[in-house]
């Protein structure tokens, strides 16, 4: 579903943010992308989402290149950024309907999914209010609902649990599992190792823009915890 080949990204006037990254995410995977602040997680995620241009390497989504066929790639995926800077002048429902129009989701499906996720995340009653009046967590919920509305084959999330209340976090994890059971793939970054350990079947650890560990969770941690593995890898790489 997602294949990253020799991806590198250098920002103007600074060193490489990501260097020669190779990854593969299959349908049904919940793939955790772990690393320090500034390790290159957001850069990679933005490149996958088609938000950030890059010159070196290739990123394929559903066997299509994000560089040469960006619209086709974006049609089958959804991206939730770390900071949900949504259109504040719209109401929640206007934003969701806008996303529905962009992804050309049939009206009936759109209404059903908005109602389902709106009720689950307990935000339906606030749909009529302007997004500018929402808290960070409410904006995050709207971003999540908008991402789920078109049943993406690939869901990309950057630190998705930040700002969510405990119930919404649990719901999001359940929803991620359900989505993968229906054949989608999920790729998300996180600092929270406990969440990654419980949620992911595959992980990758990135440090200083380079991939240091990648593989199936069970094989990588064995009888240890993800926390021990992370510390071991980070210390070893110093």
């Amino acid at each position, binding site marked *: 579903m997602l294949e990253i080949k020799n991806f590198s990204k250098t920002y103007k006037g600074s060193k490489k943010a990501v260097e020669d990254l190779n990854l593969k995410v299959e349908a049904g995977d919940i793939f955790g992308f772990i690393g320090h602040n500034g390790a290159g997680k957001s850069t990679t995620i*933005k490149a996958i*989402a*088609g*938000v950030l*241009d890059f010159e070196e390497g290739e990123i394929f989504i559903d066997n299509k290149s994000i560089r040469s066929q*960006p*619209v*086709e*790639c*974006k*049609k089958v995926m959804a*991206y939730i*950024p770390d*900071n949900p*800077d*949504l*259109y504040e*002048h*719209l109401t*929640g*429902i*206007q934003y969701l*309907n*806008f*996303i*529905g*129009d*962009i*992804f*050309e989701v*049939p*009206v009936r499906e*759109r*209404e059903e999914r*908005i*109602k389902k996720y*709106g009720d689950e995340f307990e935000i*339906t*009653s*606030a*749909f*009529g*209010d*302007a997004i*500018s*009046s929402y808290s960070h967590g409410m904006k995050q919920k709207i971003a999540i609902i908008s991402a789920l509305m078109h049943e993406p084959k690939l869901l990309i999330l950057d630190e998705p649990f930040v700002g969510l209340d405990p119930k919404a976090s649990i719901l999001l994890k359940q929803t991620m599992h359900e989505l993968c059971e229906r054949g989608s793939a999920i790729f998300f970054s996180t600092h929270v190792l406990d969440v990654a350990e419980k949620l992911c079947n595959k992980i990758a650890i990135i440090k200083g823009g380079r991939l240091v560990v990648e593989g199936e969770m069970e094989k990588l941690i064995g009888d240890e915890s993800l926390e021990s593995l992370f510390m071991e890898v980070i210390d070893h790489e110093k």
Partner: protein
Amino acid sequence: MKSKCFLLFKVQFFNQVNVKSKAKSQVMVMVSMGILGVILAIYSYMIGYGLGSMGMAEVIPSYALAITSIVTLFFTAIKANGVLFAYKDYDILMALPVKTSTVIASRFLTMYVLNLIFTALVMVPMGISYIVWQGPGFLFYPVWIAGLLAAPLVPTTIATLLGALIILFTSRFKYANILTTVVSLAAMIAVVLGSFSLGGVSDESIDISAIKSVGEFMLVQINRIYPLASLFHKAVVKLDMVSFLIYLVISAGWYYLFVKVLSLRYKKMNTGLMTYHTRSDYKMTSLSAGSPLKALWKKEMKRFFSSTPYILNMGMGIILAVVFSIACLFVGRDQIGTILNMPGIQDVIGGVLPFVVSMLGCMSCTTSVSLSLEGKSIGILKSLPVSPELVYKSKILMNLTLILPAMLISSACLAICFPQSLPGVVLIFVTPLVYGTFTSIFGMFVNIKMPNYEWTNEISVIKQSMSSMAGIFGGMINGGIPIIILVVFKNLDPVVVGAIFTAAEAVLSVLLFGYLKKLRF
């Protein structure tokens, strides 16, 4: 207190004028601002010199002070909300260990300095023209400089209060933004009309026979519009130090009072302004679907109508176009040349009409800022499955939706007011449409090349960005060139000139849009 105030001011000011590390774009912005400044200064000098050449040099001080104060009042009222009230970093700033009055002073200082730059660009050249004609003594210089420094204080404070009161009143209503825009517009028109009615001549108020010259008449008018101008006039022309001191005390005292009184209510006012009235009673109803282009276009329209500064700045051109053309119906064709204030325009008025409508309409160029206004939400647009071309189309369509109806109304009014030959009538309708389309595409091009997504206050994009200025002035120049050609070369056939320019503009529109499609944002 002073150092903290200056520190806060420094951060705010550089954020407001958007000083970036990108040397190339920074140089471009500085050069363009410099050119605009030079044009304004030359224009101001010419006005001052013109007054002097007509024997009215004594009017210059009052004129300079009144005109800068009225313009300052008008533009500060638009941007006060967002600089002094309901700004994004309010929480961070108020949590700092600084007095409320220091915060107010630092925010006010930002507006004051920006207004002072404008005031200096008008008052310094006008002062020079006064020196040229009157050759005043040494005392003139400190009086003029002190007067200049004090000039923005009163209008900035009045405008700030006016802006805040409007927002406080309108924030209670559901459609607060639209109401704010309407009330702001009405208030500004009321201020302008009110000041002119104050300055109006009536038999009871002024003894006409007592007025010896046009200059004296103008002086009376200006001083009635802006009473502080009278004090400044006495200080500069008669070197009346008592009037000068009263002028300074009123300006500084009013500002001091403003900061002190506002400190008492500042938190309460901001809380009122920043408290959202949510209903939280939404029930799912059936939704309506549309195409991606329609969805993007609707988003653009909602963005426009959600922002008072956006409407007031970018809507001004179409408002002027409609007001001008409707006024033509009532004023009559003979008076139009006088109103346009361009020598020799009466002879070619029929030929220049399509370009006058085009020029005014093209000042409303939302495309020159609409991409930048995406701000931090630009990531959403980049991650959506839509091509850049579709995004550009939606933004261009939005601008056309605003300007084309206004242009058609204007064209219809002018076609009635100035009966033309059939080709002339066709041009009155077609030329503005073509010019409007070109300007919309040109604005889009400018904004793609000069985006600014890192703003914290939309005013910095709408009013002060390079692309905004390029859009508005580009539109004016674009429509203005054929007017100048027709006025200067009166023997040219206006229909032929109009047709050539319109055809050229249509070709340019097609070529530029073709190029635009290949650009990524």
